[in-house]
């Protein structure tokens, strides 16, 4: 009891209760995923009872393994395809919107600024329903990869805008004004001064959009047409409660590994490019953290 009082009495001491809660939380958050990954190597059909180690659900089984089941492979491919398309379209649109909204002081800026914030607060099912209705009843866009891309880009743009705008606000207009004073055209000042300064934020935008796309379920499902446009989250949603094999865990594991490796690689590339470009201060991690209010 005395020791408990001492912890409270010393404001800069280590509160062990808080430390224990924190570490318990970390274990709770991560160990279940580790167990699920472990079960992808189960030597039986069960996803809950360990029956020895094997790689049959990865490549051993001639029909149901990740390597040989075409539906599992196509889900992984579709997830990656959509992530690529989403990054390719959403990042340029978002960067342009962020620059436009920060530098443009006209009447249109304020409503567009609010419009940009709405996708961030709209529950995904509302977006899924509205896109489904407008595609089928007004635009006659067929459901499938195109519709899935259109939907994912729509909710991804705002995240890019928030990240890039945070950086733009901290840069300020001085550098471009200096470039303009030294004789650069508006476009030249943008390309030679602003764009290099924005690079860390743009890079963070790519990473965040990749993660958003890979993780997305609702909009992607509402925009999907048939089994051929099924992504990994959709596959898990459809099969997790049924009598499926640990191959499902293996597919999920593939996506975890792909995401973690991409993020790690992106971080290394970023570190490397930041070293060769000393003008850019601030890190992509900070840009991602800037997402939170």
């Amino acid at each position, binding site marked *: 009891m005395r020791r408990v009082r001492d912890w*409270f009495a010393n404001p800069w001491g280590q*509160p062990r209760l808080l*430390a224990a*809660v*924190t570490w318990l939380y*970390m274990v709770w*958050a991560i160990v*279940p*995923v580790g*167990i*699920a990954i472990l079960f992808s190597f189960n030597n039986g059909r069960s*996803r*809950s*009872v360990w029956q020895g180690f094997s790689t049959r659900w990865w490549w051993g089984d001639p029909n149901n393994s990740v390597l040989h089941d075409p539906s599992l492979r196509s889900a992984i491919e579709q997830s990656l395809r959509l992530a690529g398309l989403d990054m390719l379209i959403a990042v340029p649109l*978002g960067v*342009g*919107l962020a*620059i436009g*909204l920060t*530098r443009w002081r*006209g009447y249109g*800026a304020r409503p*567009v600024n*609010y*419009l*940009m*914030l*709405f996708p*961030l*607060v*709209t*529950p*995904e*099912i*509302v977006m899924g*329903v*509205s*896109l*489904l*209705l*407008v595609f089928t*009843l*007004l635009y006659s866009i067929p459901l499938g990869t195109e519709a899935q891309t259109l939907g994912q*880009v*729509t909710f991804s743009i705002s995240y890019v805008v928030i990240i890039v705008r945070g950086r733009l*606000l*901290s840069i300020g207009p001085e550098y471009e004004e200096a470039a303009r004073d030294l004789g650069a055209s508006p476009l030249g000042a943008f390309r030679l001064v602003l764009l290099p300064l924005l690079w860390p934020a743009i890079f963070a935008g790519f990473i965040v959009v990749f*993660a958003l796309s890979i993780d997305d*379920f609702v909009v992607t499902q*509402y925009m999907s047409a048939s089994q051929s446009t099924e992504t*990994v989250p959709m596959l*898990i949603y459809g099969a*997790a*409660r049924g009598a499926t094999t640990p191959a499902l865990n293996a597919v999920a594991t593939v*996506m*975890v590994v792909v995401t973690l490796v991409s*993020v790690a690689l992106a971080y290394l590339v970023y570190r490397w490019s930041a070293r060769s470009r000393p003008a850019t201060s601030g890190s992509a991690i900070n840009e991602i*953290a800037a997402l*939170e*209010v």
Partner: protein
Amino acid sequence: MTRRWFWPSFALPGAAWLILLFLVPTYAVVAVAFGTVDPIFSQPVPVWNPLQWQFGGMRAVLDGLEPGHAFWIVFVRTFAYVALSLAGCLLIGYPVAYYLARYARRSRGLLLVLLVVPFWVSYMMRMLAWIGLLLPDGLVNRVLLDLGILSQPYGWLDGQASSVVFALIYGYVPYLILPLYAVLDRIDRSVLEAGRDLGGSPISTFLHVTLPLSKNGILAASVLIALPMFGDYYTNDLISNSPKTSMIGNQINLFVQGGTQRTVGASLVIVLSLLLAVLMSYYLWATVRASAETRESLL
């Protein structure tokens, strides 16, 4: 290209995209909710002109929302689940964020990495992990049987409200901790020291300094996770899959994706959006204010 149009032209493609694929679709939901139904194919026919709106679908939803009726029960249940989950997330998330921001030193880097890992593991994978653990022959039941707490396996996945709330907490708590950490980390240590120097006990310093300073952050982060929870249907489908625990999202999904009653589904979307408008406006207001403050502090 004139100078006047130089900056707006950057925003044009993104703005046009959001108008065509966010604003127009939102109006399409309204047009379907107040539209008619084709009698032969039972397909919804949107009515774009507000003067010709039909109110049949909306009336059916509003009738169901009377106390004791079908939608009323679902709405009350949804609010209860979200409130419980949010409370659980705060009870777990605040101490973790507080410890990270205030105390963790040597272990801080490792803890931050561990904190971010769930962001890179997809939501569905994390739910899949718990389904494996909660199955009748899963680890949770076996441990509880071995400890003698249970005498036979418990059906955690057979429509248990507690399992759904647990899964919602597990799924959304990472999205709460990171913004909370950012807010708590920004609190100036000298302010806390001042509170202590002026004779406040650690607890009263926490209550009178730390908590008020993090109040806006707590609210914004809570709204940030409550909004998607209100529209969540997949957690419920995966962990319970029973109408006994059905939430608003499940109802909307049932009417729009499963059945032919898209008019009712669209009306439910409108009712849900109107109920959430308070939360949304708060978040938008806080965001715009925060970015205005950043702008001012930089000028």
